[in-house]
Structures are given as C-alpha cells and as structure tokens.
C-alpha cells in the first residue's frame, strides 16, 4: 500500500491523515497532542504510531504538512485609509494564511507601540499611499514600528516612492525588512499577490525555524505552509475544479476554530440587483477573512465581550433559553481548559457552546460579506454596495470541531444564510450546506499540491449535505 501522509500541526493537536494513493481515499487518521514546547516531532510520532497501528506497513508516497502551532502566523497590518490601503493590507495578510490580529489605518500613535508589543507579531505588513501618492503616513508609521520591541519582520508594501526611505527607517531601528510591490499601486486597484508571496517566503525561510518546526520540516517532502493557506487552496480547488473534473462553482467555507473563525469565499461578488453599484475596492474572487475575536476556546472571552457589548447578553440568552450565569460558568471552564468538550459532565453546556458557535458564524459571515446601503438620488433610489455580493453563492461548507461535533450542525451553519435580521448583509440566500465531517479541508489543501484530482474527489465524496 502506498500512502500520502498529510499532517496538520495544530495549536492543540497534531493530526495526521493517511491517503491511499491507489484508491484515492482516506484510510487512516491519527491525532496526538502537539508538543511544540519541547520537540514537535514527539507529538508527530505519537500521531504517526496510530497510523501504523491502523495500517501496518506501507510505502510512503510523500509526507506533507501545514501548521498553526505556536500561535500560527501572527500578523499586524497597516495602511492609510480604512477602506483602501488598510483593507488591502488586511486582505493580503489573510490570503497568505496569517492570523491578522489587528489592522491599523492612518497614523500610528505611541500608544499603539505597546499594543503591538503585546500582540507580539511574526510579521508586520506596512502599506499606505498609492504609488506616487501619500508618503508621510507610511514613513511616520515606519518610525513608530521601528520603536516596537520584538523579533519580527516588516514587509513594506506601500507607496513605491516611499519604500526605500521606509526601509532605512526600519533598519535603523534594527528591524528585518522586505520590500515588495504596493498592495494598491493605483486608486482602487488591488495587488495583493506580491505581499502574499513575501509573507509565504518569510514563513518558510524564517518563521518555521523560529517556531521550533524545523525538525518537523526536515521530515517533510514539501515546505510546511500555514494551515489557513492549505484550507484556502482546498477551497479554491473545490470551487474551480480541475481539468478533469468540474468544481462546485461559487462557494463559501467556514472554519470555526479555538482561536479564530476563518471565512472563505470563492465568488466574484459583483452586484446582483439592478440599480446597485460598487463603491470602494473590488474585492478578490478568492477571499479569506479571519476573526481573532471569534474563537471557541482561546478567544471565547473576546466573543463573550462582544455579546455582552451588544445588549448585555440578553438576546443571546433568550434565544438559547439559558441563564447568563451558566454562560459565565462555561466560559470559566473553557478558560481553564481550552481542550474541554461539552460532553459527559459538561453535557449541560452543549447548547451554550452551540450558541457561541452560531454567533461566531453569524458575525464572521457579516464581516466577510458585503453590504448595501440605500441612497436617494435625483433619479430615485439606488443601492451602493461595499464588498462582495454573495447572495447567489450555491454552497456553504462548515468545518472545524465546534461545527462538526455539534449535535445540530445545521442550527449553527444556518447563521451563514441571509436573514432579514441583518438586512443589508449580502449573505447567500439559498445555499446548500455541506459539512466537512472528517475535518479534512486542510489535509486536502496539502494533497491538492500533489494530486488535485484526488483531493477534489475526496472532498466531494466526504462532504455531507445537511441542508
């Protein structure tokens, strides 16, 4: 038997999926605690031994891996105007698979030095100004970033005319700098691929080692990539298909994790109703957004804070039929043990956990999709659309433990569908909902790099339609 081993070094677990090359199917799965603090290969070998137990001897076709261990690829991005270069910088970082902790616009202040130090990013992406445009802000921000303590890289991807000077300022502050093309070279024109490539190169060349993954990397047949990038590529494949087989067309996917909620859309997003027009930038066909305040364990407190901010938690509790006290208890339990599941003695918290999951999907969706605003003109009412119109998207995929292990995943994933409650959000109106029951999206993104047809088939076969 010839096998592909696909490994996902997660923050809590190291997961290994084995694919039979001949039959193109998942034949074994192993899971063990990630041991990044001492030696990541210990956990890897533990997971691997489970594969050996299940399969006996086999011939290895290739071993591929992705990682979100040790905090994943943590980034901060910055730009000038929120809707323009700041947004472009965030899109670039997110599409590279980074956990974008914060996006700044306009001038950074001294106050933000501490904030960035607390985030402790792996990379800061600095942009601002179209080519030949504003230089003052990116140069000012370079001087602030130069003062931020910490070992991190800075990618300068802003106004070309300011790049050399920005580099000098940063290097004088002891920062390691990479300069690449502007994320927005001309007004409204997105150019995120060069920054995405620069992030990928830094991750492979430096961050893998910094995170203690180099020993594992040496055991693989391909460089280790960020897990969200693997998921991104799986979604692209599933949407586009291959030469031999058609994809599903326009789709969205949700990966609900312990630290973040990741939302992907593969769709053009152009206005679908007459009398509407796009304002702001045209977002890319393949888009990822990542929400650091919507996570089921490490970021549960942040999500709780959002819920409380809305209305003290009243609608959250009423809709779920539980008391605030119980919500707080569950929050405390999760805080103490991020690997806890709402099972056994904690089964009574299953509804609360599911409500948090539904909330994450709802808010993650709202932030990802575009929205319309009515404007009244001398020629009558028109709709100004900002972001992507995803109303016609036909498939929504749910992935991540909190979704697939829930008693009623459909209840959670329903929040990805348009609802009059969020009137102007351009969420899919009537999509089919698929569940990534085997949680194989990341693994299939890895496999896609070698065997796209096989990866596509496995996804199509293993996703179950639940609504």
């Amino acid at each position, binding site marked *: 038997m010839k096998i592909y081993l696909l490994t996902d070094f997660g923050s809590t677990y190291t997961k290994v999926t084995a694919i039979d090359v001949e039959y193109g199917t998942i034949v074994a799965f192993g899971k063990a605690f990630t041991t990044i603090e001492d030696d990541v290969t210990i956990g890897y070998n533990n997971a691997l031994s489970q594969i050996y137990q299940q399969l006996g001897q086999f011939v290895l076709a290739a071993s591929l891996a992705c990682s979100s261990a040790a905090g994943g690829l943590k980034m901060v991005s910055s730009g*000038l*105007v929120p*809707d*323009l*270069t700041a947004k472009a910088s965030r899109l670039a970082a997110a599409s590279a698979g980074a956990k974008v902790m914060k996006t700044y616009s306009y001038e950074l202040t001294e106050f933000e030095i501490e904030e960035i130090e607390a985030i402790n990013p792996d990379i800061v992406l600095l942009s*601002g*100004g*179209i080519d*030949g*445009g*504003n*230089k*003052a802000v990116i140069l000012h921000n370079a001087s602030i970033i130069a003062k931020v303590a910490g070992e991190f890289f800075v990618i300068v991807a802003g106004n070309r*005319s300011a790049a050399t000077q920005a580099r000098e300022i940063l290097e004088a502050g002891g920062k390691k700098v990479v300069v690449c093309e502007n994320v*927005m070279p*001309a*007004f*409204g024109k997105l150019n995120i691929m060069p920054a995405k490539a620069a992030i990928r190169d830094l991750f492979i060349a430096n961050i893998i080692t910094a995170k203690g993954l180099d020993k594992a990397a040496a055991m693989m047949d391909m460089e280790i990539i960020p897990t969200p990038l693997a998921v991104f590529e799986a979604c692209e494949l599933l949407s586009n298909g291959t030469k031999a087989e058609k994809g599903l067309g326009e789709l969205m996917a949700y990966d609900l994790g312990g630290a973040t909620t990741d939302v992907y859309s593969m769709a053009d997003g152009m206005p679908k109703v007459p009398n509407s*027009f796009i*304002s*702001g930038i045209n977002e890319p066909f393949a888009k990822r957004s990542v929400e650091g305040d919507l996570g089921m364990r490490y970021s549960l407190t942040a999500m709780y804070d959002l819920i409380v901010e809305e209305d003290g938690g009243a609608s959250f509790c009423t809709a779920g039929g539980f008391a605030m006290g119980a919500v707080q208890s569950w929050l405390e339990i999760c805080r103490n043990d991020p690997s806890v599941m709402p099972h056994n003695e904690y089964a009574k918290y299953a509804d609360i956990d599911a409500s948090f999951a539904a909330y994450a999907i709802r808010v993650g969706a709202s932030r990802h999709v575009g929205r319309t605003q009515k*404007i009244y*003109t*001398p*020629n009558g009412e*028109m709709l*100004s659309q900002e972001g992507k119109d995803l109303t016609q998207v036909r498939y929504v995929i749910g992935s991540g433990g909190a979704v697939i292990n829930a008693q009623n995943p459909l209840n959670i994933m329903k929040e990805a569908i348009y609802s009059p409650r969020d009137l102007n959000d351009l969420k899919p109106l009537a999509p089919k909902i698929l569940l990534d029951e085997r949680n194989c999206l990341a693994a299939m993104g890895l496999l896609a790099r070698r065997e796209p047809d096989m990866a596509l088939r496995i996804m199509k076969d293993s996703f179950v339609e639940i609504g």
Partner: protein
Amino acid sequence: MDANVIVNDENQEKISIVLGVIGADVHAVGNKILNYVFTKAGFNVVNLGVMASQQEFVEAAVEADAKAIVVSSLYGHGEIDCKGLREKCDEAGLAGIKLYAGGNLVVGKQDFTQVEKTFKDMGFDRVYPPGSDPQINVGHMREDFGLMI
C-alpha cells in the same frame, strides 16, 4: 524629459489630482475628455469616473496625496452633491487642497455669478460655467500650484 510634463522640483514626481463626476450622475463623456486633457498636461490623474461619492473623492485624495480635486456635475444637482465636501477634506487632513467644479452645476440656465458665489461659499476655489474649456482649468492649476512658466 517631455517638455509638457510638469515636475515638482522637490521630488521629480508628477502632481496628483483627483477627478470624477459626483453624485448619481452618469454622464461619462466629459469625464473622459477631462482625464485625457489633464493627463496630457502632465498631471497624475486619479480618475474616479462617474457616480463618485464625496467619500471616494476624499479617500482617493488622501491616498494619492492629491493637490486638487476636480469635480464635474452635469445633471443639475451639483449643489446638493457638493455640499460638505470642503468640510470632509478638512476633517481628513486635506487642509488647503484645491477644489474645482464645472459642468452643468445647476438646473437650467441660471445666472452664473450667483452659481459661482454659491460654490465658493461652499469652499470651492474655482467654479466653471457650462461648456468651459478644460484647458482653462489646466492653466489655473499651474497657477495655483506655483508652476507658472
């Protein structure tokens, strides 16, 4: 170097200006001509095309570090569409940016001195009557930016 190209002697770069047709106005032809004329005159034109909102003008000017915003309005609702643009510019740190307006700014044939006053009161630096030759505006910009030769 092309004799027509205006250089800012400090950094050898072209001066940026933002151009667009404001509001819900779809008249596209004049905008194309203005874009052509201004580009030819050596400006770096950020052209927003038709149906540009005040916010788009302002944000584009910020990113482009523009020295001027040239607003066209052809369909007669220029006054409502332009109101508040100067204040938004001030708010965005674009203090002193030149604002020009032209086209058919108001409905029908009204006394232009009155129209000009209305727009100047709103903070526009120069206001042009219907059918104005864009070259006049080019001359004014050179003057306003201190590029008179």
